[in-house]
């Protein structure tokens, strides 16, 4: 086949550095935008994936973050609003050997592309989704988004947002995602490690990245990054470890019956102890609920990671497995007759 014959000219896996993934395009995000941190993290992760750059594809929708593909020297498509999930699905299932990344924002994935996102999660093709969540529409200059908090004053909500925000990890878990994580632009190591782990996961890996839009929603995630406040407001999820947080590392989250509860570390015992297990779906859904639970710290890390057959494996695109005589039979169908 033609594509194959051209593809066989390709080189063997190479050792890259992050510099190898720099494209010739100037990066056009606002100075100080959280997007830069994600771009740098991805460029550091790519050399570790073992993929040739011609086998990597970034597909994005529309929004500030969706400019991303222009800035990495791989294949890339800056598509249309909300549809990157569907385009990536068509690409991945027909070319499963490719490493496919989807770049999206909160408007792109939670509003206009919401339907495609949930169907991506339930199908589970082996792609990586990076959701740049800045809780605002940046590119269109500051309207409220489906993740904006209630009451937020924006150009499109001068009296305050009245819509309940989406909770991306809960939404994607509910849709059947097999890998769900959250990280934030300001924790560069955590950002890097989370994206790396997502890239290694075989299946749809969904990473929500809190990304500061310093122009239209500056400081919205400050309580998670502020030196003084953050330890009381965040909890870093680590496999097999207890859910401990607080400046003095003296608070823990335990399970009381079906309900999470904050206790002091000394109150943790064998019966209520909660050790983080990313394979546990029920606990993952509870962690996702912390997002909007009063007084609970915001979890960062891998909520859920459990492999199941991927859509590209199940779809089994194999190309023509028939010669012309077999196609002739199909064209002739079951019933033919002769006219002399």
């Amino acid at each position: 086949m033609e594509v194959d014959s051209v593809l066989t000219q390709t080189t063997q896996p190479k050792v890259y550095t992050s510099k190898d993934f720099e494209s010739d395009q100037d990066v056009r995000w606002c100075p100080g935008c959280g997007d830069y941190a994600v771009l740098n993290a991805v460029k550091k992760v790519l050399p570790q994936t073992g993929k040739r750059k011609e086998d990597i594809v970034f597909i994005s929708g529309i929004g500030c973050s969706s400019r991303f593909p222009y800035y990495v020297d791989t294949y890339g498509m800056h598509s249309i609003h909300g549809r990157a999930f569907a385009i990536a699905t068509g690409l991945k299932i027909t070319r499963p050997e490719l490493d496919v990344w989807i770049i999206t924002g909160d408007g792109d994935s939670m509003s206009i592309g919401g339907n495609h996102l949930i169907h991506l999660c339930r199908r589970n093709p082996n792609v990586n989704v990076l959701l740049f969540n800045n809780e605002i529409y940046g590119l269109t200059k500051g309207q409220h988004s489906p993740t904006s908090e209630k009451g937020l004053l924006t150009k499109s909500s001068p009296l305050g947002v009245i819509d309940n925000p989406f909770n991306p990890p809960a939404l994607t878990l509910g849709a059947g995602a097999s890998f769900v994580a959250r990280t934030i632009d300001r924790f560069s190591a955590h950002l890097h490690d989370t994206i790396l782990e997502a890239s290694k996961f075989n299946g749809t890996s969904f990473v929500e990245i809190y990304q500061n839009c310093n122009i239209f929603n500056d400081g919205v995630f400050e309580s998670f990054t502020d030196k003084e406040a953050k330890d009381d407001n965040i909890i870093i999820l680590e496999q097999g470890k207890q859910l401990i947080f607080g400046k003095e590392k003296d608070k823990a989250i335990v399970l009381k019956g079906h309900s999470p509860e904050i206790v002091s570390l000394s109150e943790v015992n064998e019966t209520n102890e909660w050790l983080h297990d990313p394979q546990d779906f029920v606990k993952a859904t509870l962690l996702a609920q912390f997002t909007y639970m009063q007084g609970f710290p915001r979890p960062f890390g891998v909520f859920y990671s459990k492999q199941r057959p991927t859509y590209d494996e199940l779809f089994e695109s194999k190309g023509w497995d028939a010669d012309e005589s077999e196609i002739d039979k199909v064209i002739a169908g079951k019933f033919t007759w002769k006219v002399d």
Partner: protein
Amino acid sequence: MQRKTTDEMTLKEKELSSVVIKFVGDSGDGMQVSGNLFTSTSALAGNDIATFPDFPAEIRAPIGTVAGVSGFQIRFGSEEIYSPGDSCDVLIAMNAAALKSNLDTLKTNGIIIANTLGFDSKNLRLAGYSSDADPLGEVQAKGYKLVNVDLSKVAKETLADKGISTKEMERGKNMVALGLVCWMYQRPLDKVFALTEMRFGKKGDWAEWNKALIQAGWNFGETLELFNERYVVKPAPLQSGTYRGIAGNEALALGLIAAGHKSGLKLFLGAYPITPASDVLHELAKYKKLGVDSFMAEDEIAAICAAIGASYGGNLGVTVSSGPGIALKTEAMGLAISLEIPLVICNVQRGGPSTGLPTKTEQADLFQAMFGRNGEAPMIVIAPGSPRECFEMAFEAAKLSLEHVTPVMLLSDGYIANGAEPWKFPRMEELPKINPNLAKSVSGYKPYERDENFVRQWAVPGMSGMQHRIGGLEKENITGNVSYDPDNHQLMVDLRRKKVEKIVDFIPELKIVNGDEKGKLLVLGWGSTLGAITTAITDAHKAGIQVSQAHLRYLNPFPRNLEMVLNSFENILVPELNSGQLAFILKSNFNANIIQLNKVKGKPFLAREILEKITEINHGS
């Protein structure tokens, strides 16, 4: 009833060149099965054929009501047949609702074979007749020939000892009707049996039982003095060769398969169920083992986007839908036009606007295909004229798309999608090779560098050294980098237009298929009106009217010689199942005397309607 032996009867035998019959009944009455078996039998008898199924709009409308009537019309003849026929010679009506909703399709003096039980007081009520109505008496009074047969009773008698319920026995009435009609038209009984075995072979005893039912229907015709004539329809002068029956949607799917295989690329269909296009999805889904990829998406938008993703990956991406679905795909079509990647979009048109008439036919999406996108977004548009042409044109759509690296829209419609005709199908070796314009050299690849036909080289992920980024933002000429430069935008708009215009060098010229090369009147059609127009032209010629015929299969761009053809005639009659969309485009592009003939009733043209218009113009000039 009194029985007589055959030799006592004085049966006349009459030769006919073409006959139209229609099986009508409740959607559960098996009308499609009888119709299909009769069709195949007539094919084996050497007739030319055209068929059209008439499905109820509701899936399971209440039994016995007009809303639940399902029909199957077949025209067979010893002459060439171009359409399923304007009106019927014989109506086989299983119940009152079926008769009520189809009586207007029966010729004056036509024959009605009425299933007695279907006209009892309950069925009359269900069909919406008043309690004192006598529709069968009325049709007789109107001069139709009524043949009242208790088909259910014959079925029950035939299957009496089979140990099945009365209800099940009565289900055999469609086969009794089939047997009776086979007797009337002297269809070869051995062939009917062979076909019945083929069809029911796997379903336990039903193959044998159905044969018995057909035989019973045949015997019924033979032994009762129901008819005073029997008919002969001789074989048609068809080209020698091997034939099959084909409906448009199936042909479309097969054309895509053939094209995919010829191109060496994977065929990927992204689709979402929609009437009347779903059969293309069903058809392609059957061939996963051969290597056909079909993907049922979450919605119409995802369906085209997945196809775009597949095309982006170097495959033949296809999406199939109908008007409302195409509307949803609009933005993504624009993306494909902007990216300049191959993509085949098939619109099996139906009545609109909005949800419109899902099961009825219309050609009103031509404007949508030509202009229905934001910005300057030209796209190749082609349209098959008949069920079998769906194969050729689907192949052509894929070929143009892959070789010119650009999206192509194919316009079919519900009429040819479901209509069927005999097809002298090609062998793969007779079909041309398709050469996708995949990028070949690695040095200095520029995604929007073009050849002399304005076609860019198509580099796909996996090709080393050719990594590039493309998108829906305007691209700089040659490099494909984002550009907001005013002159560049003008240039790119012009280049995308020229690329589509250039297709004119790769498509056939418009031919006059019937009549003189110039004269007073040309009938110019497009799409599914081909059959009705051809019938009308043939009839006009028989009546001594000078008129010529040409049919457009390429709508954007038009064939190079279209203007010359238009200029060769004083008047151009353009029949369309819309309010004049092609006529509008022709008027705005050419200086010709365009006369419109339009109809939007969800039904195809009758040949008679076109003939009347031809006659009127002929008289007027």
